[in-house]
Protein backbone atom coordinates (compact mmCIF):
# COMPACT_ATOMS: atom_id res chain seq x y z
CA UNK A 1 0.00 0.00 0.00
CA UNK A 2 1.55 3.26 -1.17
CA UNK A 3 0.70 6.79 -0.26
CA UNK A 4 0.57 9.34 -3.08
CA UNK A 5 -0.33 13.00 -2.75
CA UNK A 6 -0.51 15.74 -5.32
CA UNK A 7 -0.12 19.35 -4.25
CA UNK A 8 -0.80 22.16 -6.69
CA UNK A 9 0.13 25.68 -5.59
CA UNK A 10 -0.57 28.89 -7.47
CA UNK A 11 -0.16 27.11 -10.76
CA UNK A 12 -0.16 29.34 -13.81
CA UNK A 13 0.14 28.66 -17.52
CA UNK A 14 0.42 31.10 -20.40
CA UNK A 15 1.03 30.39 -24.06
CA UNK A 16 3.10 33.28 -25.31
CA UNK A 17 0.89 36.08 -24.02
CA UNK A 18 -2.38 34.20 -23.67
CA UNK A 19 -3.23 33.36 -20.09
CA UNK A 20 -4.78 29.92 -19.74
CA UNK A 21 -5.17 29.77 -15.96
CA UNK A 22 -3.62 31.33 -12.91
CA UNK A 23 -3.74 30.91 -9.14
CA UNK A 24 -4.75 27.28 -9.30
CA UNK A 25 -4.58 25.62 -5.86
CA UNK A 26 -5.69 22.15 -4.84
CA UNK A 27 -4.56 18.99 -3.13
CA UNK A 28 -5.43 15.35 -3.75
CA UNK A 29 -4.59 12.46 -1.48
CA UNK A 30 -4.33 8.72 -2.02
CA UNK A 31 -7.67 7.21 -2.93
CA UNK A 32 -9.29 10.48 -4.03
CA UNK A 33 -10.85 11.27 -7.39
CA UNK A 34 -11.23 14.75 -8.86
CA UNK A 35 -13.22 16.13 -11.78
CA UNK A 36 -11.82 19.06 -13.75
CA UNK A 37 -14.31 20.91 -15.87
CA UNK A 38 -14.54 24.19 -17.77
CA UNK A 39 -15.47 25.66 -21.11
CA UNK A 40 -13.69 24.74 -24.35
CA UNK A 41 -10.27 26.32 -24.20
CA UNK A 42 -10.35 26.80 -20.43
CA UNK A 43 -7.17 24.75 -20.06
CA UNK A 44 -8.29 21.29 -18.96
CA UNK A 45 -6.04 19.50 -21.41
CA UNK A 46 -3.21 21.91 -20.68
CA UNK A 47 -3.48 21.13 -16.97
CA UNK A 48 -3.46 17.40 -17.66
CA UNK A 49 -0.29 17.71 -19.73
CA UNK A 50 1.42 19.73 -17.02
CA UNK A 51 0.46 17.18 -14.36
CA UNK A 52 1.72 14.38 -16.63
CA UNK A 53 5.08 16.15 -16.67
CA UNK A 54 5.22 16.70 -20.41
CA UNK A 55 4.59 20.46 -20.43
CA UNK A 56 6.19 23.05 -18.16
CA UNK A 57 4.11 25.44 -16.10
CA UNK A 58 4.73 29.18 -16.40
CA UNK A 59 4.66 29.92 -12.67
CA UNK A 60 3.70 28.32 -9.37
CA UNK A 61 4.43 24.66 -8.86
CA UNK A 62 3.06 21.17 -8.39
CA UNK A 63 4.52 18.21 -6.59
CA UNK A 64 3.77 14.52 -6.37
CA UNK A 65 4.69 13.05 -3.00
CA UNK A 66 5.12 9.30 -2.93
CA UNK A 67 5.43 7.78 0.54
CA UNK A 68 6.57 11.15 1.94
CA UNK A 69 9.25 11.55 -0.72
CA UNK A 70 9.11 14.11 -3.49
CA UNK A 71 8.90 12.65 -6.98
CA UNK A 72 11.49 14.13 -9.34
CA UNK A 73 10.17 15.80 -12.45
CA UNK A 74 12.06 13.26 -14.54
CA UNK A 75 10.39 10.31 -12.88
CA UNK A 76 6.78 11.43 -13.09
CA UNK A 77 6.34 9.23 -16.16
CA UNK A 78 6.79 6.17 -13.97
CA UNK A 79 3.76 6.91 -11.78
CA UNK A 80 1.22 8.47 -14.18
CA UNK A 81 -0.93 7.07 -16.94
CA UNK A 82 -2.57 9.49 -19.36
CA UNK A 83 -5.48 9.00 -21.72
CA UNK A 84 -6.38 11.93 -23.93
CA UNK A 85 -7.67 12.78 -27.40
CA UNK A 86 -4.35 14.22 -28.62
CA UNK A 87 -2.35 11.16 -27.62
CA UNK A 88 -1.12 9.36 -30.74
CA UNK A 89 0.45 5.90 -30.69
CA UNK A 90 2.88 4.54 -33.24
CA UNK A 91 0.53 3.57 -36.01
CA UNK A 92 3.12 1.67 -38.04
CA UNK A 93 3.11 -0.97 -35.29
CA UNK A 94 0.37 -3.31 -34.13
CA UNK A 95 -1.37 -2.90 -30.77
CA UNK A 96 0.69 -5.74 -29.35
CA UNK A 97 3.96 -4.31 -30.68
CA UNK A 98 3.14 -0.89 -29.23
CA UNK A 99 2.53 -2.31 -25.77
CA UNK A 100 5.53 -4.60 -25.89
CA UNK A 101 7.71 -1.67 -26.93
CA UNK A 102 6.36 0.55 -24.15
CA UNK A 103 7.01 -2.14 -21.55
CA UNK A 104 10.57 -2.53 -22.79
CA UNK A 105 11.28 1.19 -22.94
CA UNK A 106 9.83 1.57 -19.45
CA UNK A 107 12.11 -1.26 -18.43
CA UNK A 108 9.36 -3.29 -16.77
CA UNK A 109 9.34 -7.05 -17.09
CA UNK A 110 6.18 -8.22 -18.78
CA UNK A 111 5.48 -11.52 -20.44
CA UNK A 112 3.54 -11.67 -23.70
CA UNK A 113 0.79 -13.33 -21.66
CA UNK A 114 0.51 -10.29 -19.39
CA UNK A 115 0.34 -7.98 -22.39
CA UNK A 116 -2.40 -10.12 -23.92
CA UNK A 117 -4.24 -9.90 -20.61
CA UNK A 118 -4.31 -6.11 -20.86
CA UNK A 119 -5.39 -6.30 -24.51
CA UNK A 120 -8.27 -8.54 -23.44
CA UNK A 121 -9.21 -6.07 -20.74
CA UNK A 122 -9.61 -3.22 -23.25
CA UNK A 123 -11.30 -5.53 -25.75
CA UNK A 124 -8.64 -5.49 -28.46
CA UNK A 125 -7.31 -9.02 -28.13
CA UNK A 126 -8.84 -10.16 -31.42
CA UNK A 127 -7.26 -7.26 -33.28
CA UNK A 128 -3.93 -7.28 -31.48
CA UNK A 129 -1.93 -8.07 -34.59
CA UNK A 130 -3.42 -5.36 -36.78
CA UNK A 131 -1.56 -2.12 -37.37
CA UNK A 132 -2.88 0.71 -35.21
CA UNK A 133 -3.20 2.71 -38.44
CA UNK A 134 -6.12 0.50 -39.42
CA UNK A 135 -8.00 1.05 -36.15
CA UNK A 136 -11.27 2.93 -35.74
CA UNK A 137 -11.24 5.95 -33.44
CA UNK A 138 -12.93 4.00 -30.65
CA UNK A 139 -10.34 1.25 -30.95
CA UNK A 140 -7.60 3.86 -30.82
CA UNK A 141 -9.15 5.19 -27.62
CA UNK A 142 -9.06 1.66 -26.19
CA UNK A 143 -5.39 1.11 -27.01
CA UNK A 144 -4.63 4.40 -25.22
CA UNK A 145 -6.19 2.91 -22.11
CA UNK A 146 -4.02 -0.14 -22.50
CA UNK A 147 -0.89 2.00 -22.69
CA UNK A 148 -2.00 4.07 -19.70
CA UNK A 149 -2.49 1.12 -17.36
CA UNK A 150 0.39 -1.01 -18.63
CA UNK A 151 2.76 0.00 -15.83
CA UNK A 152 0.13 -0.09 -13.09
CA UNK A 153 0.35 3.65 -12.38
CA UNK A 154 -0.61 5.36 -9.14
CA UNK A 155 -2.00 8.40 -10.90
CA UNK A 156 -4.57 8.17 -13.67
CA UNK A 157 -5.11 11.28 -15.78
CA UNK A 158 -8.16 10.94 -18.02
CA UNK A 159 -8.90 13.72 -20.52
CA UNK A 160 -12.33 13.29 -22.12
CA UNK A 161 -12.34 9.65 -21.02
CA UNK A 162 -15.38 8.40 -22.87
CA UNK A 163 -14.89 10.10 -26.22
CA UNK A 164 -15.49 7.78 -29.18
CA UNK A 165 -16.35 4.86 -26.91
CA UNK A 166 -19.40 2.64 -27.33
CA UNK A 167 -21.52 1.41 -24.43
CA UNK A 168 -19.19 -1.48 -23.77
CA UNK A 169 -16.22 0.88 -23.77
CA UNK A 170 -17.94 3.25 -21.36
CA UNK A 171 -18.63 0.35 -19.04
CA UNK A 172 -14.94 -0.49 -19.16
CA UNK A 173 -14.03 3.07 -18.10
CA UNK A 174 -16.66 2.96 -15.33
CA UNK A 175 -15.10 -0.21 -13.99
CA UNK A 176 -11.55 1.04 -14.39
CA UNK A 177 -12.21 4.20 -12.39
CA UNK A 178 -14.42 2.42 -9.86
CA UNK A 179 -11.92 -0.38 -9.22
CA UNK A 180 -8.77 1.73 -9.58
CA UNK A 181 -6.17 0.86 -6.97
CA UNK A 182 -7.32 2.16 -3.63
CA UNK A 183 -4.03 3.96 -2.96
CA UNK A 184 -4.06 5.78 -6.30
CA UNK A 185 -5.55 9.07 -7.46
CA UNK A 186 -7.69 9.80 -10.50
CA UNK A 187 -8.18 13.14 -12.29
CA UNK A 188 -10.86 13.35 -14.95
CA UNK A 189 -11.09 16.33 -17.31
CA UNK A 190 -14.51 16.43 -18.89
CA UNK A 191 -17.57 18.44 -19.84
CA UNK A 192 -19.89 15.44 -20.08
CA UNK A 193 -22.29 15.50 -17.14
CA UNK A 194 -22.43 11.71 -17.21
CA UNK A 195 -18.69 11.62 -16.45
CA UNK A 196 -19.15 13.64 -13.26
CA UNK A 197 -19.91 10.42 -11.40
CA UNK A 198 -16.22 9.52 -11.59
CA UNK A 199 -15.17 11.89 -8.83
CA UNK A 200 -16.23 13.39 -5.53
CA UNK A 201 -15.01 16.94 -6.04
CA UNK A 202 -15.21 19.23 -9.04
CA UNK A 203 -12.89 22.06 -10.01
CA UNK A 204 -14.16 24.49 -12.62
CA UNK A 205 -11.26 26.07 -14.51
CA UNK A 206 -13.43 28.99 -15.68
CA UNK A 207 -12.93 30.41 -12.20
CA UNK A 208 -9.18 30.64 -12.69
CA UNK A 209 -9.32 32.29 -16.01
CA UNK A 210 -9.73 35.98 -15.34
CA UNK A 211 -8.04 36.07 -12.01
CA UNK A 212 -5.17 38.17 -13.28
CA UNK A 213 -7.32 41.06 -14.44
CA UNK A 214 -6.74 43.46 -11.61
Amino acid at each position, binding site marked *: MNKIDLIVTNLKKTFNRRLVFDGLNFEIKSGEKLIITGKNGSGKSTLMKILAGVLTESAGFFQYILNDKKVDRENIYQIVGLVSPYL*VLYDEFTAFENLKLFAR*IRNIKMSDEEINQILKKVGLFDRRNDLVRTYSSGMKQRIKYASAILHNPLVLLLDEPTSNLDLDGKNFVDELVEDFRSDGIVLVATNESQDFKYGQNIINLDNFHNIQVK
Partner: protein
Amino acid sequence: MKKIYYIFYKDFSSELRMRFAINALIMFVIVAVSTILFSLGSENAPQNVYAGMFWVVVFFSAMSGLSRTFVSEEERGTSLILSLIANPISIFLGKFLFNLVLIFFINSIITMLYMFLFQEFLIKNWMSFLLAFLLGNFGIAASSTIIAAIISKANVKGTLYPVLAFPVLLPLILMLIEITKSAMEGNPINDVEAEFLVLVSYDVIMITASILVFDIIWRD
Protein backbone atom coordinates in the same frame (compact mmCIF):
# COMPACT_ATOMS: atom_id res chain seq x y z
CA MET B 1 20.95 1.51 -20.69
CA LYS B 2 18.21 -0.88 -21.73
CA LYS B 3 15.78 2.00 -22.13
CA ILE B 4 18.16 3.77 -24.48
CA TYR B 5 18.58 0.62 -26.52
CA TYR B 6 14.83 0.06 -26.82
CA ILE B 7 14.20 3.66 -27.91
CA PHE B 8 16.84 3.07 -30.55
CA TYR B 9 15.18 -0.25 -31.38
CA LYS B 10 11.79 1.45 -31.79
CA ASP B 11 13.24 3.99 -34.23
CA PHE B 12 15.13 1.29 -36.04
CA SER B 13 12.10 -0.97 -36.60
CA SER B 14 10.05 2.06 -37.47
CA GLU B 15 12.65 3.09 -40.03
CA LEU B 16 12.62 -0.40 -41.54
CA ARG B 17 8.88 -0.12 -42.06
CA MET B 18 8.46 3.53 -42.95
CA ARG B 19 11.82 4.54 -44.47
CA PHE B 20 11.56 8.13 -43.22
CA ALA B 21 15.25 8.90 -43.42
CA ILE B 22 17.08 6.26 -45.38
CA ASN B 23 15.43 6.82 -48.76
CA ALA B 24 16.06 10.55 -48.68
CA LEU B 25 19.64 9.92 -47.62
CA ILE B 26 20.51 7.39 -50.29
CA MET B 27 18.90 9.50 -53.01
CA PHE B 28 20.86 12.51 -51.87
CA VAL B 29 24.16 10.65 -51.87
CA ILE B 30 23.58 9.23 -55.34
CA VAL B 31 22.62 12.62 -56.79
CA ALA B 32 25.49 14.47 -55.12
CA VAL B 33 28.21 11.97 -56.02
CA SER B 34 27.10 11.57 -59.62
CA THR B 35 26.90 15.35 -60.07
CA ILE B 36 30.50 15.61 -58.91
CA LEU B 37 31.49 12.70 -61.13
CA PHE B 38 29.90 14.17 -64.26
CA SER B 39 31.09 17.71 -63.71
CA LEU B 40 34.67 16.52 -63.26
CA GLY B 41 34.53 14.44 -66.41
CA SER B 42 37.95 13.03 -67.17
CA GLU B 43 39.76 15.89 -65.45
CA ASN B 44 41.68 15.22 -62.31
CA ALA B 45 41.18 17.78 -59.59
CA PRO B 46 43.95 18.23 -57.01
CA GLN B 47 43.80 15.67 -54.22
CA ASN B 48 42.80 18.05 -51.48
CA VAL B 49 39.67 19.04 -53.38
CA TYR B 50 38.43 15.47 -52.94
CA ALA B 51 38.84 15.69 -49.18
CA GLY B 52 36.67 18.80 -49.17
CA MET B 53 34.06 17.33 -51.49
CA PHE B 54 33.88 14.17 -49.41
CA TRP B 55 32.93 15.97 -46.20
CA VAL B 56 30.64 18.38 -47.99
CA VAL B 57 28.58 15.43 -49.21
CA VAL B 58 28.61 13.91 -45.71
CA PHE B 59 27.56 17.24 -44.21
CA PHE B 60 24.60 17.73 -46.52
CA SER B 61 23.42 14.15 -46.30
CA ALA B 62 23.52 14.44 -42.51
CA MET B 63 21.40 17.56 -42.81
CA SER B 64 18.85 15.92 -45.05
CA GLY B 65 18.54 12.68 -43.10
CA LEU B 66 19.37 13.07 -39.44
CA SER B 67 16.76 15.71 -38.68
CA ARG B 68 13.99 13.19 -39.33
CA THR B 69 14.28 11.52 -35.93
CA PHE B 70 12.54 14.25 -33.99
CA VAL B 71 10.67 15.98 -36.78
CA SER B 72 8.76 12.84 -37.69
CA GLU B 73 7.73 12.26 -34.05
CA GLU B 74 6.55 15.83 -33.80
CA GLU B 75 4.73 15.78 -37.12
CA ARG B 76 2.89 12.58 -36.33
CA GLY B 77 2.09 13.72 -32.81
CA THR B 78 3.84 10.78 -31.18
CA SER B 79 6.26 12.84 -29.08
CA LEU B 80 3.63 12.92 -26.33
CA ILE B 81 3.52 9.15 -25.91
CA LEU B 82 7.31 9.07 -26.06
CA SER B 83 7.64 11.53 -23.20
CA LEU B 84 5.06 9.53 -21.25
CA ILE B 85 7.15 6.37 -21.32
CA ALA B 86 10.73 7.58 -20.88
CA ASN B 87 12.77 10.33 -19.27
CA PRO B 88 14.34 13.00 -21.48
CA ILE B 89 17.92 11.78 -21.19
CA SER B 90 17.05 8.28 -22.38
CA ILE B 91 15.07 9.77 -25.24
CA PHE B 92 17.97 11.93 -26.31
CA LEU B 93 20.51 9.13 -26.07
CA GLY B 94 18.24 6.68 -27.88
CA LYS B 95 17.77 9.12 -30.75
CA PHE B 96 21.48 9.90 -30.74
CA LEU B 97 22.29 6.21 -31.02
CA PHE B 98 19.94 5.89 -33.96
CA ASN B 99 21.51 8.86 -35.74
CA LEU B 100 24.95 7.47 -34.99
CA VAL B 101 24.13 4.17 -36.67
CA LEU B 102 22.55 6.03 -39.58
CA ILE B 103 25.54 8.32 -40.16
CA PHE B 104 27.99 5.42 -39.91
CA PHE B 105 25.98 3.51 -42.46
CA ILE B 106 25.61 6.38 -44.92
CA ASN B 107 29.17 7.57 -44.44
CA SER B 108 30.54 4.11 -45.19
CA ILE B 109 28.55 4.13 -48.42
CA ILE B 110 29.93 7.54 -49.35
CA THR B 111 33.50 6.40 -48.59
CA MET B 112 33.12 3.30 -50.73
CA LEU B 113 31.59 5.28 -53.60
CA TYR B 114 34.45 7.77 -53.47
CA MET B 115 37.10 5.09 -53.47
CA PHE B 116 35.41 3.29 -56.30
CA LEU B 117 34.64 6.29 -58.51
CA PHE B 118 37.57 8.66 -57.94
CA GLN B 119 41.06 7.24 -58.31
CA GLU B 120 42.40 10.42 -56.78
CA PHE B 121 40.59 9.72 -53.53
CA LEU B 122 43.41 7.63 -52.20
CA ILE B 123 43.87 7.36 -48.45
CA LYS B 124 47.48 6.63 -47.56
CA ASN B 125 47.19 6.84 -43.78
CA TRP B 126 44.18 4.73 -42.90
CA MET B 127 44.72 5.03 -39.14
CA SER B 128 44.36 8.76 -39.37
CA PHE B 129 41.36 8.63 -41.68
CA LEU B 130 39.47 6.00 -39.67
CA LEU B 131 39.98 7.88 -36.42
CA ALA B 132 38.66 11.05 -38.06
CA PHE B 133 35.77 9.03 -39.48
CA LEU B 134 34.90 7.76 -36.00
CA LEU B 135 35.20 11.06 -34.15
CA GLY B 136 33.61 12.97 -37.01
CA ASN B 137 30.55 10.74 -37.17
CA PHE B 138 30.14 10.97 -33.43
CA GLY B 139 30.25 14.77 -33.55
CA ILE B 140 27.91 15.00 -36.53
CA ALA B 141 25.40 12.64 -34.88
CA ALA B 142 25.50 14.51 -31.56
CA SER B 143 25.04 17.96 -33.03
CA SER B 144 22.46 16.82 -35.59
CA THR B 145 20.38 15.19 -32.87
CA ILE B 146 20.20 18.25 -30.64
CA ILE B 147 19.60 20.58 -33.59
CA ALA B 148 16.82 18.26 -34.78
CA ALA B 149 15.25 18.44 -31.33
CA ILE B 150 15.34 22.24 -31.44
CA ILE B 151 13.79 22.57 -34.88
CA SER B 152 11.12 19.94 -34.22
CA LYS B 153 9.76 22.30 -31.58
CA ALA B 154 10.07 25.39 -33.77
CA ASN B 155 7.44 26.36 -36.28
CA VAL B 156 9.63 26.82 -39.32
CA LYS B 157 11.16 23.33 -39.39
CA GLY B 158 12.77 22.54 -42.75
CA THR B 159 14.53 25.78 -43.54
CA LEU B 160 15.86 26.28 -40.05
CA TYR B 161 18.00 23.17 -40.07
CA PRO B 162 20.80 24.22 -42.40
CA VAL B 163 20.81 27.68 -40.83
CA LEU B 164 21.42 26.24 -37.37
CA ALA B 165 23.55 23.32 -38.46
CA PHE B 166 26.05 25.26 -40.53
CA PRO B 167 27.75 27.34 -37.82
CA VAL B 168 27.60 24.46 -35.35
CA LEU B 169 29.11 21.92 -37.71
CA LEU B 170 31.57 24.23 -39.48
CA PRO B 171 34.54 23.84 -37.09
CA LEU B 172 34.01 20.09 -37.14
CA ILE B 173 33.95 19.90 -40.94
CA LEU B 174 37.05 22.10 -41.24
CA MET B 175 39.05 19.81 -38.95
CA LEU B 176 37.80 16.73 -40.77
CA ILE B 177 38.87 18.14 -44.12
CA GLU B 178 42.34 18.99 -42.79
CA ILE B 179 42.81 15.51 -41.34
CA THR B 180 41.54 13.81 -44.48
CA LYS B 181 43.93 15.85 -46.63
CA SER B 182 46.78 14.88 -44.38
CA ALA B 183 45.69 11.22 -44.47
CA MET B 184 45.62 11.34 -48.25
CA GLU B 185 49.16 12.68 -48.33
CA GLY B 186 50.20 9.85 -46.07
CA ASN B 187 51.44 12.12 -43.28
CA PRO B 188 51.83 10.59 -39.83
CA ILE B 189 49.02 11.09 -37.34
CA ASN B 190 51.16 13.43 -35.20
CA ASP B 191 51.01 16.08 -37.90
CA VAL B 192 47.31 16.60 -37.25
CA GLU B 193 47.42 16.09 -33.50
CA ALA B 194 45.97 19.54 -32.88
CA GLU B 195 43.07 18.85 -35.27
CA PHE B 196 42.32 15.60 -33.47
CA LEU B 197 42.29 17.31 -30.10
CA VAL B 198 39.83 19.85 -31.48
CA LEU B 199 37.64 16.97 -32.69
CA VAL B 200 37.69 15.23 -29.33
CA SER B 201 36.90 18.45 -27.46
CA TYR B 202 34.11 19.22 -29.89
CA ASP B 203 32.52 15.79 -29.37
CA VAL B 204 32.72 15.99 -25.59
CA ILE B 205 31.28 19.52 -25.51
CA MET B 206 28.47 18.65 -27.91
CA ILE B 207 27.28 15.56 -26.07
CA THR B 208 27.56 17.14 -22.61
CA ALA B 209 25.79 20.34 -23.60
CA SER B 210 23.06 18.37 -25.36
CA ILE B 211 22.35 16.21 -22.33
CA LEU B 212 22.15 19.32 -20.15
CA VAL B 213 19.78 21.32 -22.33
CA PHE B 214 17.71 18.55 -23.88
CA ASP B 215 14.98 18.29 -21.25
CA ILE B 216 14.39 22.04 -21.44
CA ILE B 217 13.96 21.85 -25.20
CA TRP B 218 11.91 18.68 -25.03
CA ARG B 219 9.33 19.96 -22.54
CA ASP B 220 8.86 23.23 -24.46
